[in-house]
């Protein structure tokens, strides 16, 4: 932890960065994002096993960007977010100073996107066995059981859009939900409005989701939203050979094709 604080202090002092996005102590048993702009603030940086959430979404937040040159403490999910955002022209190489805490508490700094790509090649990017089991459990249901299951989940949704706000890939200034000519997605949080919203979001994240799970973590109503996008990861990988957030210059799986893409349902 000291190494991190020392490093960030140095970066701030020598003006390499103007602000550093890291973790700090939060309410009671929580950790939260902090934005160290001074040495004093940097001394509040912590790194504990609870520091698991993906900070990368802040890189595109208007007010955070205005703090100046940013540094960030990135975990694997954040690194993948950065790669994906780079492939969508939202972050440029060298724009952000990226630190990573290794298992032995030492720090890795990434000089460029290429080094992140090399790092990610060896990193564990899979969804957890628990998440996998939950997906399999749903897949094992009948069609109508699945409909019932999701209907029950979506019923709870209050359309607070915490999932969207927490997702690093949901950076559109004008989400489809906000488009009202035509009103593709009903604003109301009734069953239809909720189903439309969540399917739309899952579809828009298909091939872009880097399985950080922030959507589900953010949901105050405890809807397992992450499973919607997670279950598309495997088909996209096996079907199209694409995995999101691995390369800064990747072509999006759904804006390319192979003439021999396999399907078994088109007659």
């Amino acid at each position, binding site marked *: 932890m000291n190494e991190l604080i020392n490093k960030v202090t140095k970066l701030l002092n020598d003006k390499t960065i103007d602000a550093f996005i890291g973790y700090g102590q939060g309410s009671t048993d929580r950790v939260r994002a902090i934005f160290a702009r001074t040495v004093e603030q940097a001394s509040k940086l912590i790194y504990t096993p609870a520091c698991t959430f993906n900070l990368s979404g802040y890189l595109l937040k208007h007010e955070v960007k205005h703090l100046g040159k940013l540094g960030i403490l990135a975990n694997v999910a954040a690194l993948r977010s950065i790669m994906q955002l780079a492939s969508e022209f939202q972050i440029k190489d060298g724009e952000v100073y990226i630190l990573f805490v290794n298992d032995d508490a030492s720090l890795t700094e990434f000089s460029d996107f290429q080094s992140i790509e090399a790092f990610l090649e060896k990193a564990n990017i899979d969804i957890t066995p628990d998440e996998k089991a939950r997906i399999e459990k749903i897949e094992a249901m009948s069609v109508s059981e699945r*409909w019932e299951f999701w209907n029950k989940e979506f019923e709870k949704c209050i359309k607070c859009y915490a999932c969207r706000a927490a997702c690093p890939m949901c950076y559109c200034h004008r989400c489809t939900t906000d488009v009202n000519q035509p009103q593709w997605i009903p604003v109301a949080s*009734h069953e239809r409005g909720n189903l439309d919203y969540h399917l*739309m979001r899952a579809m828009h994240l298909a091939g872009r989701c880097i399985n950080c799970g922030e959507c589900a973590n953010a949901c105050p109503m405890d809807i397992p939203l992450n499973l919607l996008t997670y279950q598309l990861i495997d088909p996209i990988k096996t079907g199209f050979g694409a995995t999101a957030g691995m390369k800064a210059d990747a072509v999006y799986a*759904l804006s*390319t094709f192979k003439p021999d893409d396999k399907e078994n*349902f088109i*007659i």
Partner: protein
Amino acid sequence: MQDFEPKIVAFVCNWCTYAGADLTGTSRTKYAANVKIIRFPCTGRIDFMILMKAFENGADGIIVSGCHPNDCHYSTGNFHARRRWIVFRNLMNFTGIDTERILFSWVSAAEGFKWADVVNNTVAKIREMGPYENYNKIAVSTLLKEEVSNHE
């Protein structure tokens, strides 16, 4: 269920399937009147959300059809559409939307008979399956009809 006339919407591309359906007409091949066509320039233009809109507005079945691979008027639109459908179908299936109610097909401008077959088979299948009760419960019309409720 005897009198059930399924409502089926067909989303087709202008160059192949729409022209194929024109040929069905020119050949005077008969098919069921339940299917109504909405014309798109290309299958690549067909947004997945429009399929959801069709179900929400009471469609019991959907046909999506365009040019065979390599035959796209715009050369690659149908390839992109195919990927999108592969993914969307996966998602629909996972969320319990009945993928049996959406038929995807390639019907070329020369396949007037195939179009009649596609329509007739789909109508027969949906007729057998009955109205799409699950989706009808949350359809637009349901909200419009519904009495004022106390608690959502």
